[in-house]
């Protein structure tokens, strides 16, 4: 029997399997940030052990940093101390840090790929659930907790039970105005926020193969939002072309060797998955969420479910609670509803391609006066590219505020928050209660849908503008 892509990489990294227990899985690359690493550094210090392979860990500051005036000391004392502790820990333990002010700084899941640190066939972990992003390169990449960060520090390995495998095949051409974010929101709405729990997902099919690396990252990024341990896509020429020439990509002879290995990374034709789902790309419309988990999404021209018709009591109660929090009505359409904020950023949608799409749509237009629009590039390098291409001028002309790289208003941790009770169309990944700030109401959508609402001030079907 053939092997899945997941099995090939997993088997290559198992050091040992414990009887009736998990496997010791070797980790090639470990990303850390300021929020989920300090307790792990403290842990190994208390145990009196050194970092086993410090060169395989790369650090950045992203979650708890301001996105304005990054050259000034961080105002919030606790935030400043947390970021300083990362600087101290990295210096003390020999970890490379791309901190504030460094040209490589940015959201951990944006910088790994753009620097060529993320490569096919690797095992990659980070104390952040959106580590699944790196799976777009044909890697096993998943989020871990702080105890596991400590495990990687101490042994360059984690203990993991092998997950089941699921393949999601997406075939056909996308409708005009439909982008990667819509694909993943559609899948999550279809299988629910827990529909892939216990599985590692491979995305396959002609639609996936037609997508850019940025688009593939958006899809893999949100795998965790349906409960999956991670998501991955077999590497191909699109992937290799993206990596080639990047700062840490293999060079010369090493590049040729790498390509020879990477081209072996695919699921064999006779590989069997524990679950398989088929999606018709043409059926996907621009998506938006109305509830408080990413599975509660609808087509932009669709209607919120009528709660009385939901058979499952738990699900019905969920949606009633979500609609109450969101201030929305059962059975209603969202089209035309005024919003107050637009957030374009996060590890899901803050890459150059996302910002180019937004710029192309808003060029020569002005934002609606009732909305505030934040554009937060995913990294210093993305920000630099935005300026190089003159997109900054288009955004400034439109009245959008461009900020500096970081997780920003995705998670309600740093200074960037959405006020209580106000609506935000956000290109981020989570619409949980309070996610963007206490009482904030998040509607997840694609960068195109977010940009459309920035212009009109209301929830808008992007197809009416193009």
């Amino acid at each position: 029997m053939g092997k899945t892509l997941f099995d090939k990489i997993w088997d290559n990294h198992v050091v040992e399997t414990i009887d009736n227990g998990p496997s010791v899985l070797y980790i090639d690359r470990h990303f850390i940030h300021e929020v989920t690493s300090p307790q792990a550094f403290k842990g190994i210090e208390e145990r009196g052990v050194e970092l086993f392979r410090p060169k395989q860990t790369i650090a950045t500051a992203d979650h708890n940093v301001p996105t304005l005036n990054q050259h000034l000391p961080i105002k919030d004392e606790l935030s400043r101390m947390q970021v300083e502790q990362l600087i101290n820990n990295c210096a003390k333990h020999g970890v490379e840090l791309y901190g504030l002010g460094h040209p490589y700084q940015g959201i951990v899941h944006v910088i790994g790929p753009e620097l060529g640190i993320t490569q096919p066939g690797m095992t990659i972990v980070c104390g952040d659930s959106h580590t699944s992003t790196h799976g777009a390169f044909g890697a096993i990449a998943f989020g871990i907790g702080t105890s596991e960060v400590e495990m990687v520090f101490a042994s360059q390995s984690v203990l993991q039970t092998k997950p089941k495998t699921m393949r999601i095949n997406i075939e056909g051409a996308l409708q005009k105005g439909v982008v990667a974010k819509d694909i993943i929101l559609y899948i999550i709405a279809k299988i629910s926020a827990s529909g892939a729990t216990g599985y590692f997902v491979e995305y396959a099919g002609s639609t996936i193969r037609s997508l850019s690396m940025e688009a593939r990252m958006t899809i893999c990024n949100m795998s965790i939002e349906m409960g999956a341990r991670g998501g991955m896509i077999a590497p191909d020429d699109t992937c290799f072309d993206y990596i080639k020439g990047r700062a840490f990509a293999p060079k010369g002879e090493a590049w040729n060797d790498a390509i020879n290995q990477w081209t072996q990374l695919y699921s064999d034709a006779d590989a069997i998955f524990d679950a398989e789902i088929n999606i018709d790309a043409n059926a996907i419309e621009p998506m938006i969420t109305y509830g408080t988990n990413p599975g509660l999404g609808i087509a932009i021209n669709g209607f919120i479910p009528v709660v009385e018709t939901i058979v499952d009591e738990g699900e019905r109660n969920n949606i009633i609670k979500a609609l109450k929090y969101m201030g929305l009505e059962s059975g209603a359409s969202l089209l035309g509803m005024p919003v107050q904020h637009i957030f374009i950023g996060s590890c899901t949608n803050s890459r150059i391609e996302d910002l180019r799409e937004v710029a192309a749509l808003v060029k020569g237009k002005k934002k609606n006066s009732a909305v505030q629009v934040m554009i937060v590039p995913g990294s210093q390098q993305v920000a630099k590219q935005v300026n190089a291409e003159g997109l900054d001028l288009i955004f400034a002309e439109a009245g959008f505020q461009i900020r500096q790289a970081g997780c920003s208003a995705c998670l309600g941790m740093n200074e960037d928050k959405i006020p209580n009770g106000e609506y935000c169309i956000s290109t981020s990944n989570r619409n949980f209660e309070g996610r963007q700030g206490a009482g904030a109401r998040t509607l997840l959508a694609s960068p195109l849908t977010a940009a459309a609402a920035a212009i009109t001030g209301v929830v808008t079907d992007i197809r009416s503008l193009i």
Partner: protein
Amino acid sequence: MKALKEIKSQFVPLPMENIDTDQIIPARFLKSTTRDGFGKNLFRDWRYNNNDETNPKPDFALNQSQYKGEILVAGKNFGCGSSREHAAWALQDYGFNAVVSSFFADIFKNNALNNGVLPVTVSDAFLQEIFEQNNTCLLTINVEAQTIKINTTGSTAHFDINLYKKTCLLNGFDDIDFLISRKELIAEFEKKN
């Protein structure tokens, strides 16, 4: 990690599904660089009005004095979302040593086990049976036997836990000690690959 063998306690019911780790501990409380003190902000925005500790929400179970104990019982897909281990630390710091649900998110389950907080997965029907008990009912969780019993009715369910993790819990061992003991083997693996 301290050993965990048996828990016999009243329980706190939270019969909602998809309780994500942002609810368990909102991101604005993740600025600490230690593992301590997260319990006071557990379920912060469900516990208090306007983020005000002097203004508790009376209809939330943690604010109702009849509900107490070391066991939290919650609807399915508990712990979904962010990988923050602070969620497990907050539950433990508040006093919970076990969470019972019909379905746990993967990362939360690992984080909980790595801190000696036991995730107990039961059927939807058994979960419902627990929710139907009154607040004085005791639950008994036996790690060795892998059972959870509703003491008032005697109704008992089995739960799964892999042998390795069970041994860790019963003895208070942690994965980091285990991996440190395997460093030579890991170094050999590096040479071969």
